[in-house]
C-alpha cells in the first residue's frame, strides 16, 4: 500500500489535470448572479479531501489508475447473455488466456464489467459488478491470487459499440481486462 501522502498528491495532480482539460473554453469560474435556462456556469471545482481513516484497504486493494491505463485492454472481452452474470462455457477459454498471461509475473489485473443500454443505470451498475466478479472468481479458480485483481463496474456508461440494436447490445454485455505493470 502506498503512503497516504503520495496518494493524496497524485489525487490532487489528477484532479488539477482534469480541471484544466475540462475548463478550457468556459467562462471564468465562480461568476455569481443568475443565468436563464440553458447556460451552464462551472462552479469552482476543487480537489477532493481525503480524510484519514476513510481510505480503506483489505482484499483486492485497488491500485492507483489513470484513464490512460484503461486504454490498454490486452485481452478478448468475455461476453454475457442478457441480464446474466454467468460465465458461458464458450467464454472460458478467454479467461484461461488471461490467467496464463498473469502466471510468472506480478502484474495486477483490472476487470471491467459492462452492460447493454437496456437496463436502468444503477441496476446495470450492480449487474456489471456481478459480471466482473464472476470473471474474478473464475480467474481465482485458475490460480490467480485475488489480491492481484480489482473490479470496476461501468454499468451501461462505456459501451464498446455505441449503436443500438441486438448486435451492439451483445458486444456491450462484457468484461474487459487490463493488466498493469505494477
Amino acid at each position, binding site marked *: 500500500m502506498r503512503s497516504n501522502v503520495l496518494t493524496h498528491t497524485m*489525487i490532487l495532480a*489528477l*484532479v488539477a489535470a*482534469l*480541471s484544466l482539460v*475540462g*475548463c478550457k473554453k468556459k467562462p471564468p469560474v465562480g461568476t455569481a448572479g*443568475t*443565468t*436563464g*435556462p*440553458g*447556460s*451552464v*456556469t*462551472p*462552479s*469552482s*471545482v*476543487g*480537489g*477532493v*479531501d*481525503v*480524510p484519514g*481513516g*476513510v*481510505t*480503506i484497504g*483489505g*482484499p*483486492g*486493494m*485497488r491500485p*492507483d*489508475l*489513470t*484513464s490512460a*491505463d*484503461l486504454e490498454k485492454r490486452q485481452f478478448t472481452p468475455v461476453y454475457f447473455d442478457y*441480464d446474466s452474470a454467468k460465465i458461458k462455457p464458450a467464454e472460458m477459454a478467454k479467461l484461461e488466456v488471461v490467467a496464463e498471461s498473469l502466471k510468472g509475473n506480478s502484474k495486477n489485473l483490472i476487470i471491467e464489467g459492462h452492460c447493454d443500454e*437496456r*437496463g*436502468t*443505470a*444503477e*441496476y446495470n*451498475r*450492480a*449487474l456489471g*459488478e*456481478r459480471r466482473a*466478479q464472476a470473471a474474478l472468481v473464475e480467474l481465482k479458480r485458475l490460480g490467480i491470487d485475488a489480491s492481484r485483481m*480489482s*473490479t*470496476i*463496474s*461501468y*454499468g451501461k*456508461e462505456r459501451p464498446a459499440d455505441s449503436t443500438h440494436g441486438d448486435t451492439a447490445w451483445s458486444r456491450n454485455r462484457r468484461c474487459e481486462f487490463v493488466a498493469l505493470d505494477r
Partner: protein
Amino acid sequence: MRILIVMILLAVNVADAQVTVRKGFQKRFVAVNGFGGTALGAKLTEVVANDVRLSGCLGLAKADAAEFVQHGNVKADGGVECFVTHVVTKKMFLSKAYPGQADARRLAHAISDDIVQAITGQRGIAQTRIAFILKQGRNKELAVMDYDGANVRQYSNDRLCARPRWSPDGTRIVYTSYWQMFPDILEVNLQTGARQILARFPGLNTGAEYSPDGLRLAVTLSKDGNPELYTMGVDGTGLRRLTNTRGAESSPTWSPDGRQIAFVSDDRGSPQIYLINRDGGEPERLTVSPSYNTEPAWSRPPSGSEMRPMIAVTSRVGGKFQIGVLETVGAGQGVRPVLADGADNEDPSWAPNGRMLVFAKRRNWSSRLYLLDVVTGEQLELPAVGEGASEPAWGP
C-alpha cells in the same frame, strides 16, 4: 383517506381526460397580469407565469376562464407588490409587498410560492433546486439548477458521475464518482464546493441516499462479494451490512420515518422492489409485476398534505421504461403506471410536495428532464440543458 386514494387512482387512470377530483387536487386557474412594463416588471411576469405553469396545482388561464386573477406592480423605490383576487367572490387571497432585490428570478420564485400558498394552502416548489447529471461529450458531471432549469452550475470535473442525492437540509449532495476510475461515493458541500470521499472500498461504491434525519447513508457496496446493501454514518464510520443474498442489491431509498429502506434486488430472478428494516433482517418483496421494477424513490409529503407517501419506480414494459407508483407499501402489490407514453421515462425523483416528480425522458437516445404531476398525469418539459441531462434529484 381511502376516498382520497381512490381519487388519485382515478386521476392517474384517465390522465388524458379532464379529471374531476376533490378540491385541493384539482388544478386552479390563474390569470397572471404581471408586474407592469418596466424591465424588472417584465422579467417578474415571465418567471411568475412560468412558475404557475410548472406548479402542478395551478394553471395559467385568460381572465375570462380564470378562478383567480393576479395583479402586481413595481414601485418607484424598486419594491414590488402582488395581489391575488378570487374572480367571483372578489375576496383578496394575497396582498403582499416585497422589498426590491437584485436577483429578479429569486424574487419572482418567492412571489410564486406565496401565490401557491395563498390559493392552495400548500408550500410551492418554485424556490427548490434539482441536482442532475449533465452530459458533456463523453463526460457526465454533477450539476445543480433551479427547478425551472435556470442557474445551472457544475460541481464536478470527474468525467463520470451518477446518482446525486440531497442532504435533508439542502447543503450537501452525495453522488457516485469515477474520479479515480473506480466508482466511489463522494459528498460535495454546495456552499464551499469542498468535496470529500465517503466510501472507496474495493469494487462498487454507489447508490447513496441520506436518511431523513441526515445522519446515515444507505449505500450499495461490493467489498464483501456481490453488491449488497449497507448503511453508514455520514462521516464514513459505523458501517452496517443489511443484506446477504446471491443476487445484487441496489438503489436504496428510505421511508419517510427512516425506519425502513426500499431497494432493488435480482436475487430471485428479474429486478424487483424489496423492503428491509433499517437494522437489517429478512427482506420483504414488494413487487412481482411487471417483470422489471427498479429505481424506487419514496416520497416525503409534508404533514397536513393531502398526498401520502408513495414509492415511484421505473418499470420496463414492452422494452420501454415507464414510471409507476406503489401507493401503499405492502407485499405483492401491483405497480400502477403513471407515465407510459411510448418514450423511455426513468430516474423519478419527488418534489418536496410529494405530488410532482422530476424524471428523465429519452427519445432517439437523447435525454431531457421533465416534471410530472402524478395526480393529473400532466408532463411539463424543462429547458434543454447542454447535450443531455439525466438522473435528476429534487432538492428539499
